[in-house]
């Protein structure tokens, strides 16, 4: 019995504008001062009217382009009507039958390293609701309503049910998160709810007779962490399989409707939400207070021209331009745009992409983790690291000495001395690594010595590195005070270079 988990995600992204979507209230996460960022418009006061925020629309276009969506030349605003205390007008301004974009896709790397092409059904723009806080005491006390969030521009991105596992759903969400962050359209702060997600989950179960059945679709509401998405889908898949083995109920059976479930992150379970007393009937109709939007080819070209390079394209380019492996390119790109920029400056500056990627993914990343800072606050600027690596690339410095310089630059910083290109030379001098600066002297000495030790050279080429001992001894005798380890590395390098 082959069981496939089938998942489609509806992701809600808060757009990073200065003001709300239909009024001039600031768009800022501010739960500590409830109901201080409201006005007649977002309070839904009688007589107040919405006016569309141009920047919210532009950011939406940018995102839809990055998601390879078709962009509508004509789009309009509709009212979606339902009663809830966090929705003061009792309708949400959204888009129904003519969303501004549709039919896009996002490529995601799955666990097995395959690229999965996830289709996007549509992306539309709408307003966020406020926030209700419920009495947790269980005594049924009043609920509190804060409308600060009400009217925050929200982009809803609906995928097709193309995801095939909980891990893949998580990977999709991570890729989307990365893209949105790159584009600067959202801060994607999941703790603050600026990226939220509903998951539609069911199973395709292949029967012994070769027929495949589908279990009833369940929508898990309001997942707000990557881990939560993965855990909730995993739980739900197991639950549905168990449910199916008990009841045999499947999609299309009479009385089977889409079920809505919540996610309890503490107990790690999904739970049935109380069924609505009537089937939802949102009575969508065009909002008479807002005029439609038309988009011309010229406008689209203008927006397209302003776009940054998308992560997927940059990943490919890093592979091609800097000779990175797929894995290394992903590590760099997935750290975010600033990190990728840092890498790229270092790679350009030192002229060696592989050298650069080794350093940034190992030394730099380790330091960032230890220091709990982002690359924006990393003490060694890209041009300084590039200058350091250039010496290694040129053969002026061994990798090991380079690390010493790197560590010294960091401790300089911790003592209040800013790392600089000049400091690199100074450190090399102080540490006595300076002698290697005259590689001509060392190299000609090594070359001369090598010439006298044909047998040892042969052994070294065959991987017997300990055969380097006599050559090291000879070179050290003539170059007083040299670091034997450095000399050893250089000898091996010269032999391998000349092979």
């Amino acid at each position, binding site marked *: 019995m082959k069981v496939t988990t089938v998942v489609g995600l509806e992701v809600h992204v808060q757009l990073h504008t200065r003001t709300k979507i239909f009024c001039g209230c600031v768009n800022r996460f501010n739960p500590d001062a409830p109901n201080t960022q409201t006005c007649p418009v977002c309070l839904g*006061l*009688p*007589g107040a*009217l919405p006016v569309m925020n141009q920047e919210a629309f532009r950011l939406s276009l940018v995102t839809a382009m990055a998601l390879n969506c078709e962009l509508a030349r004509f789009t309009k605003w509709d009212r979606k009507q339902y009663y809830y*205390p966090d929705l003061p007008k*009792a309708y949400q301004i959204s888009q129904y039958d003519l969303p501004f974009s549709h039919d896009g896709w996002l490529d995601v790397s799955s666990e097995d390293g395959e690229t999965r092409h996830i289709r996007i059904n549509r992306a539309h723009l709408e307003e966020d609701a406020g926030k209700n806080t419920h009495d947790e005491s269980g005594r049924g006390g009043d609920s509190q309503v804060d409308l600060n969030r009400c009217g925050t521009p929200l982009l809803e991105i609906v995928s097709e049910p193309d995801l095939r596992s909980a891990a893949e759903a998580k990977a999709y969400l991570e890729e989307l998160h990365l893209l949105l962050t790159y584009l600067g359209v959202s801060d994607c702060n999941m703790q603050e709810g600026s990226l939220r997600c509903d998951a539609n989950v069911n199973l395709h179960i292949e029967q012994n007779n070769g027929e495949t059945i589908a279990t009833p679709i369940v929508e898990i509401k309001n997942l707000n962490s990557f881990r939560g998405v993965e855990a909730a889908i995993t739980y739900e898949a197991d639950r549905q399989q168990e449910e199916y083995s008990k009841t045999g109920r499947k999609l299309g059976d009479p009385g089977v409707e889409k079920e809505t479930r919540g996610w309890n992150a503490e107990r790690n379970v999904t739970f049935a939400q109380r069924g609505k007393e009537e089937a939802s*009937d949102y009575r969508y109709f065009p909002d008479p207070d807002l005029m439609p939007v038309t988009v011309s080819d010229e406008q689209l070209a203008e927006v397209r021209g302003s776009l940054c390079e998308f992560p997927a394209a940059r990943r490919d380019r890093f592979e091609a331009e800097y000779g990175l492996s797929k894995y290394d390119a992903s590590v760099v790109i997935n750290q975010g745009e600033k990190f990728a920029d840092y890498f790229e400056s270092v790679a350009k500056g030192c002229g060696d992409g592989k050298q650069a990627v080794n350093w940034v993914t190992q030394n730099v990343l380790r330091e960032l983790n230890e220091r709990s800072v982002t690359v924006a606050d990393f003490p060694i600027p890209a041009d300084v690291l590039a200058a350091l690596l250039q010496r290694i690339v040129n053969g002026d410095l061994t990798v090991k000495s380079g690390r010493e310089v790197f560590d010294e630059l960091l401790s300089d910083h911790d003592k209040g001395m800013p790392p600089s290109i000049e400091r690199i030379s100074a450190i090399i001098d102080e540490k006595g690594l300076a002698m290697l600066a005259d590689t001509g002297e060392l190299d000609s000495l090594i070359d001369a010595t090598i010439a006298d030790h044909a047998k040892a050279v042969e052994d070294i080429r065959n991987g017997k590195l300990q055969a380097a001992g006599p050559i090291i001894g000879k070179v050290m005798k003539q170059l007083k005070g040299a670091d034997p380890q450095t000399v050893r590395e250089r000898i091996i390098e010269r032999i391998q270079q000349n092979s």
Partner: protein
Amino acid sequence: MSLSTHTTQDLLDQLQSGQLTSTELVTTCLDRIDAHDERIGAFLHFEREPALQQAAEIDRRRQAGGTLGALAGLPVAIKDNICANGTRTTCASRMLENFVPPYDAHIIERLRQADAVLLGRTNLDEFAMGSSCENSAFQQTRNPWDTERTPGGSSGGSAAAVAAGMTPLSIGSDTGGSIRQPAAFCGVVGMKPTYGRVSRYGLVAFASSLDQIGPFANDVTGVSRLLEVLAGHDERDSTSIDRRVPAYSQNLDQPLDGLRIGIAKEHFVEGLHPEVEQAVRSAVDVYRSLGAEIKEVTLPHSKYCVAVYYIVAPSEASSNLARYDGVHYGFRAEKFDNMIDMYSATRGEGFGDEVKRRIMLGTYALSAGYYDAYYLKALKVRRLIRQDFDRAFEEVDVIASPVTPTPAFKIGELIDDPLAMYLTDIYTISANLAGLPGVSLPCGFSSEGLPIGLQLQAAPFEEERLLRAARMYERETDWHTRRPAMNSNSAS
């Protein structure tokens, strides 16, 4: 002094020349309200002191030689569905009985800038839904010409207040005829501007794609003066159009050369009171005598206006009025079992019958399975109605018609037959559906002494031409100078 013998222009001239102070004028209005409004019921509420203070302030500034706005010192009464910061705005509904907006409607800002004196709040059908003021949750406004009759609606309070000489100017809103019909019933001039001409920001929405704020006065000049202040672009209303506002009152007295007046046969059909027909046809004769060209036009989809309207308006209303749910402002029921019950109890108790009926109608028309048959169908016929007018206005400058099929009806006469009540708007609704400007002006009296109105409609944004055409007729007649006989023991 008596308001009833003075036009808006007279009053402005007297204020400017110092013959009259705003304090005197406002006091006259307030006295008049004191004397008659118990009987007429035009005003829902007003604050004496703030109005007098505002008048005194304007008088002071005038004496000091300061620059004053276009309506400086003139009282204006406001229909109680337009928000003014700090002033109760009830919409004649229990739902908003104690609602105090924290902001000014665009037109309130404009009136303040024009130094008009905000006089008080006039009665209406609850949330502007009605044609008689019978749907007000608080009181019945009576027609000053015959207190057994309705003043029309929904802006009945504003029309009656002008007719009864309680204010020279007032503001109404018109969704299906709510300015023009009460103007006709009360024998005053009322105008619905082009949709988008006056900002709706701060007008409590009934049907957003139809609502438009407009002026009432005793004559065309007064209406023009007031419209000059109200009209203009407002970036807070997406449906407000950014277009130059002509000085409507400036060229009013220049007759239009070669004016082409359209008459539609669809406007003279069964149900039209013969005296109304007679008055309107005589008015057309006046135009003919002034050299206007009278042409037949055809508006073949006219007969569908009421049906389209009673889908579109309730649909939008059902959505606009969903916000009154007892959570963020307004009335909340006292007894309920839970959250959902709180909503239902609040809305069940807070709204009157007609409002609930229209919410139900609109909810039904938008609900799953009925949307295409009702709402979408109505929007399509709406376009056909608009196209009729587009074609007609290629041939003529204005279309003349009755405002209402009959003169003012009696209080209670139609209250139990909503459909019959709806059909009284048959001549006015099309302007709202098509977005056109329309004006109602007095053109005669019935044998029972009730005013009859003439409606003129023009193409979008042709208010200037419309008002000049109206003024041509007004100059030739004296209907607009007639006043209802108020009780002899009245002040003034």
